[in-house]
């Protein structure tokens, strides 16, 4: 039986996170290089969309991650509310900026793809609109947290907001099925064979994994900063090598 609560203490978590970051960052770099190589040099040109389709190697991974990070953030928020653990709130706060960036990138790359393919930068389609709402939810979460000076209250208030906003995630995910929209349906699914060439799928999955590892690395870095900021009064912080210097 692993004592999870031991790892939820900032003091134990801080060095572990520090050791894990280089690994996550290295894996992210390797996967991103491999994914981009597959995407740009190995994947064939699409019969209908030409070279322009290659943006999916960025668009699909960042869109997946934008939703996934929100769910993880809501998960940590819920854990924080239930167990009243400090680290969970910090995890949620650390994930929010990355999630917001991925959501923004998803909208941006989608617009870049939409202009040549649909002829327009933006449509008020269900998936695009709900993704835009997701961006607002991330921004609202960060704005709420930064408006509250007491960090414990900021964590809890943010947690409630994150949990309320989680209703948006299934709406985004299923919007292409529920409404007959301009945005195409999913090409990748767990239950049936993907409706795309295997090499394209490999490139996309590599990039998705790279985005995942990048998220892990960058949010752990942010958590470490948050720990240093919030626990600056604790004795163990002053024992750290990087602080003593």
């Amino acid at each position, binding site marked *: 039986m692993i004592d999870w609560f031991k790892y939820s203490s900032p003091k134990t978590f801080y060095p572990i996170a520090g050791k894990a970051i280089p690994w996550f960052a290295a894996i992210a770099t390797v996967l991103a290089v491999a994914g981009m190589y597959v995407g740009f040099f190995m994947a064939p040109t699409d019969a209908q969309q030409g070279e322009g389709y290659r943006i999916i190697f960025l668009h699909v991974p960042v869109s997946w991650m934008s939703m996934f990070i929100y769910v993880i953030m809501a998960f940590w928020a819920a854990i924080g509310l239930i167990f009243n653990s400090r680290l969970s709130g910090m995890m949620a706060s650390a994930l929010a900026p990355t999630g917001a960036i991925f959501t923004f990138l998803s909208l941006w790359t989608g617009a870049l793809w939409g202009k040549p393919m649909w002829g327009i930068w933006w449509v008020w389609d269900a998936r695009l609109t709900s993704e835009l*709402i997701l961006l*607002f939810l991330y*921004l609202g979460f960060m*704005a*709420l947290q930064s*408006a509250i000076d007491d960090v414990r209250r900021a964590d809890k*208030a943010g947690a*409630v907001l994150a949990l309320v906003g989680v209703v948006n995630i299934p*709406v985004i995910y299923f919007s292409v099925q529920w409404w007959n929209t301009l945005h195409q349906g999913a090409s990748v699914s767990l239950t049936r064979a993907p409706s795309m060439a295997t090499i394209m799928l490999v490139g996309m999955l590599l990039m998705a994994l790279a985005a995942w590892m990048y998220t892990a690395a960058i949010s752990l870095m942010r958590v470490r900063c948050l720990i240093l900021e919030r626990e600056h009064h604790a004795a163990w912080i002053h024992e750290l090598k990087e602080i003593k210097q």
Partner: protein
Amino acid sequence: MNDSLGLYACCRIAQRDLKLAMRRKSDAATPLLFFVIVATLFPLGIGTEADTLRTIAPGVLWVAALLATMLSLPKLFEDDYADGTLEQLALSSAPLSAFVVGKIAAHWLLTGLPVAVLAPLLALQFHLPSSSLLVLSATLMIGTPVLGLIGAIGASLTLGIRGGGILLALLVLPLYVPVLIFGTGAVDAAAAGLGATANLSLLGAMLVIGFFFAPWAITAALRIALE
């Protein structure tokens, strides 16, 4: 007295809020005036062509109703929070969620219901066909309580925070989008002769889900604010 469900508490707090609002009638009327003025600005800004106005009417009236509800939200808990009443309510034996529901009901009677009644009159200025008027009123009747429930989550989260009002808008408006879409969708569908039942049912479903889950989130946020 046995009031484990808090029905008595819910009714009493609603009565109290209504009585307080009646003592300060101009405060209660401000959101309604705002609603009327905002709706009036659109024909002046966009142009008075009947066809254009008819197309934009559901959207404009809904957005105006939404903003009017939102503007009145900070008031919902603020006064009680400032004078300590909220703390007493949280300490009382009746469930806090009962008080919350009562306060939201009073808030709806003071803003949502008058807006739903006023909207058809304003819609006449927008040349909306008379068949759509009833649908518009019905969507607002079902939709404004959802706005109140969602808005109360934002109001309780931003309680006593600097810049609370504008932050409240940032938190609540994205969550209002589905209500807005189905509310205006119902009126548009009715105008196109498709029947508004599907959209109205979805609004009703949102109301039920909101009524079930929102008090839970609101009480959690209130307890955080009171800590």
